[in-house]
């Protein structure tokens, strides 16, 4: 049984000009520890698919299950708890809380999950991503690459079983982007985390076990079948 199962999911939204179909009948299975890249042009539905797989949004039809739990059966509160337990996130715009330091940002998911004194673990992770000296810095005192490394450390503090990354290198220059990619895959291997990456970057996609391509809301191609 796949770790993440998307069954015939579609997503429609209401707009001023009528109903808009963003995603149509997508079926997808992702195994534990697999790395998957979702590629496609802007507006093709990549990020919508990611939001549905992560339980940030619910499909209009079909369902998504993580570890055999149908997300549509859960309310907003339960989905938040499930995300806190099993899911980590990395975003193109880093999305760090601007009022918290690097260390406090990394500690945040653990504290939200009720973990006591996560400080040591957070410091360890920051050291792992090369930011041991920057723990007291606020996001606006860090470069883009550094902010993304904080976001990676934050994503791994809860030892997530699955990590969703939305254009993780999209805001970074090539050299910094490569460093961040290396770090992401290194941690992925170390923690055995399932990784789902939305990207435009073909080179990043190539590093994943499998690539799916989306056009106009439907999966048009899947290659590099799972080698896990």
């Amino acid at each position, binding site marked *: 049984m796949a770790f993440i199962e998307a069954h015939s999911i579609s997503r429609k939204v209401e707009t001023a000009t009528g109903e808009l179909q963003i995603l149509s009948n997508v079926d997808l299975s992702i195994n534990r520890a697999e790395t998957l890249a979702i590629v496609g042009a802007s507006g093709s539905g990549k990020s919508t698919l*990611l939001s549905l797989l992560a339980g*940030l*949004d619910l499909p209009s039809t079909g369902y998504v299950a993580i570890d055999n739990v149908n997300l549509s059966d859960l309310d907003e509160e339960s989905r938040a708890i499930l995300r*806190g*337990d099993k899911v980590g996130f990395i*975003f193109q*715009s880093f999305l*760090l809380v601007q009022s918290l*330091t690097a260390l406090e940002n990394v500690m945040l998911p653990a504290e939200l999950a009720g973990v006591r004194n996560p400080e040591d673990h957070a410091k360890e992770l920051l050291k792992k991503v090369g930011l041991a000296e920057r723990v007291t810095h606020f996001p606006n005192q860090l470069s*883009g690459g550094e902010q993304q490394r904080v976001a990676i450390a934050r994503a791994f503090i809860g030892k997530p079983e699955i990590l969703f990354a939305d254009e993780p290198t999209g805001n970074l220059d090539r050299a910094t982007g490569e460093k961040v990619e290396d770090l992401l895959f290194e941690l992925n291997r170390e923690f055995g985390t399932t990784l789902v990456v939305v990207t435009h970057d073909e080179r990043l996609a190539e590093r994943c076990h499998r690539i799916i391509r989306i056009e106009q809301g439907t999966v048009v191609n899947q290659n590099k079948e799972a080698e896990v």
Partner: protein
Amino acid sequence: MRVANWLKISFRLLRHELKRGELTIMAIAIAFSVASVLSLSVFSERLQAGILAQSSEFLAADRVLRSRQEIPIRWIEQAREQGLQSARRTTFNSMVFASNELALADIKAVSEEYPLRGTLEIAEQPFAQGNATESLPVPGEAWVHSGLFQQLPIELGDSIEVGNTSFVVTKVLIKEPDSGFSVFADAPTVLIPYSDLAATGLIQPGSRVSFNYLFAGEPEDIDTYEQWIIPQLDDLTQSWRGIRDGDSPLASALNRAERFMLLASLLGVVLAATAVAVAAQRYCQRNYDAVAIMKTLGGNNGFVRSIFVTHLLLLSLFSIFIGSVLGYFIQLGVGHWVAKQLAYSLPAASWKPWGLAISTGLLSALLFSLYPLLRLLSIPPLRVLRRELDGDNVKRVIHWFACGGGILLLMVLYSRNLTLSLALFAGGAFAAMVLLLIGRLLIRLSRQAGMQAGSSWRLAMAGMQRRAKENSLQMLSFATAIMLLLLVLALRTELLDDWQNQLPENAPNFFVVNVAPEQVSDMQTMFTAENIQATDLYPITPGRLVSINGQLVRDEVSKEDRDNSDVREGFGRELQLTWRSTLPPENNLISGRWFEGEELGVSVESEVAERLALKLGDILEFRVGGAEFEVPVLSIREVDWNTMQPNFYMIFNENTISQNSATYIASFYLPSERKAELYDLFKSFPQASLIDVDDIIQQIRGVIGHVSMAITFVMVLVMFAGGLVLLAQVQASLEEREQEIVILRTLGARSKLLTQAVSYEFIILGALAGFIAAVAMEASIYILQTQVFEMAPTIHWRFWLLGPVVGASVVTLLGWFSCRSLLRQRTGTLIRALA
């Protein structure tokens, strides 16, 4: 365990945000609302207590019960049980004899406790500078006014006879705290001990005696006693009086000042609350991302709600604490300054202002944050991917209800006057809607005008039009703040000018009465020769109003008279009548015409005309010197009773009653350094009596001095509150401006163009808001002048210019100050900040 975590996160967010200045405006707004309410309430409570204590000296007590007969002893015992002090003062007119000569005097018999407020001043020579004393004449002694030394051949140590008893005159009585304002009835005072009163044998059944019972004590004890005694009084023969009662200039100054303080303070509180509302909106918007991130990372609704409600609560408590400390020191500083300026220390305030200030802070923070907070907590986690999502459309009615209800609640809490609060609130809400519509219309018109202009202007106009909805709301709050500032400024000027005009530096400080007709010309000559500014000498003759249009009026007020429906409302007493060929100064004809030639007629004072329902052409019958005659009402006059000059209810044409015997009255100004000359100046007019009103004037000036300072203080606070609203509003619009600046900079716009465009947008917004504010201020001040302050309405043209200029300058300055870091930053930095 999770409780500790959300508390920790809340505290951490607060600590960092305060340190980084992200919550500065919100914290300042809450702290300011607390500080201003606290300092205003403490200060006004202390000032009011100070003014009342000082003013009570005019009564020699806090309250006086006047009665035509002795009151039951139980009433005095009840006052003592209530913790009040009491004293007796019995007054009547009687002839006083010395060396076979006689003079009419005002006999004042006082008990040992007199005066309960204020002090007596005595001297060793008539008309000399008095010295305060705590003592009273002992049995067998009398202290007499300077005037009696003119009328009788006496010196200190001589005896005078009052009724069956003789008294040794031991001191000259210079000042009594309760000498009053009435000039016509004034004969020189003879102060004797109450214990000697019976021996005079002058109190007989039917004597015209005024029994006065003086009370003083803590305000709450006075209030309790007042509630107990008033229902038991006989309206016809007894009256209960405080300093606010009556037509004295002091009562009117006090009431007007209190109304102004209340109004201005209310406006200050509303402004501070508006600043909190604007800042709360911005606070919540800034936290949209944080909420989305926390929800994405596993924070459930309850947890996130706990974090932000606690965060807001911590911020409020911190700001309330800062505001309380600040408010305490402000009022302390102002209190010291006032005490130094007036050489008078203000009494301490109660705990009530603290409760009011803290509830204001909590109400402002919580009620005005309710809607933004609900919206914040509804932010979906999906915002991390779709940045345009900004929460459920929580019903706006909650916002209006919370903000409107909050403001109304604050007004009621502050003024303790539901009617005034509702009226102001309803008027304000209506004005806000009108201003909003005018604002949108002006923005639309300015866009059309701007299309003809250069690129920076065009850019500014385009910006305004694009944000028309936000800008019209912003303009509404700018206009409200500027309007309130102009209003307080204009009212302050009006009130102070009005008072200053009533009591100019050389306002008459003496009245001379009982001037014989044959001495009028000599006295006028003396005034001119001695360079003394005096009013005309007015003849006065006593008379009574008998009937109106043939219908008898009540004369002596008696129960039988009152129940008789055939008689009209009358004066119930003797009147002082005068005649004159020209309209006296400070009198305005409001209807009819002044006398022409020798026609018979009378001119009636407007309030009397209203009370007696008189109109032009009514025929009034008077009895003067045993003869009765009828005259038509030819005019109705408005009289300014606050001026220190002889004023009259009825003025006749010269030939109407001039055949009657009369004495003359005038008022004049004599500088204090010339007071020593009085005795010599009036030695040759032995019949005339002098009444010194300098002390009254000085005391009124003292009260006006207190109040002027308070008004200035309130104005400074209101201006600060207005500035805070403007700043909060400008800050709230910064993020959107940031995005525009990034786009324009990326497209190659130069710094100069951007600076000009931003400045021009603020100039237009500020000037339009200032113009609207001036119009709204003029309408509001008209209502306030005519309905609240009983002043003549005036137009304030200079504010029509001042409004737009102040609006444009302040808004541009604040806008430029807030945007300057954005305009200086490099495009790359800005893009990263926005990413």
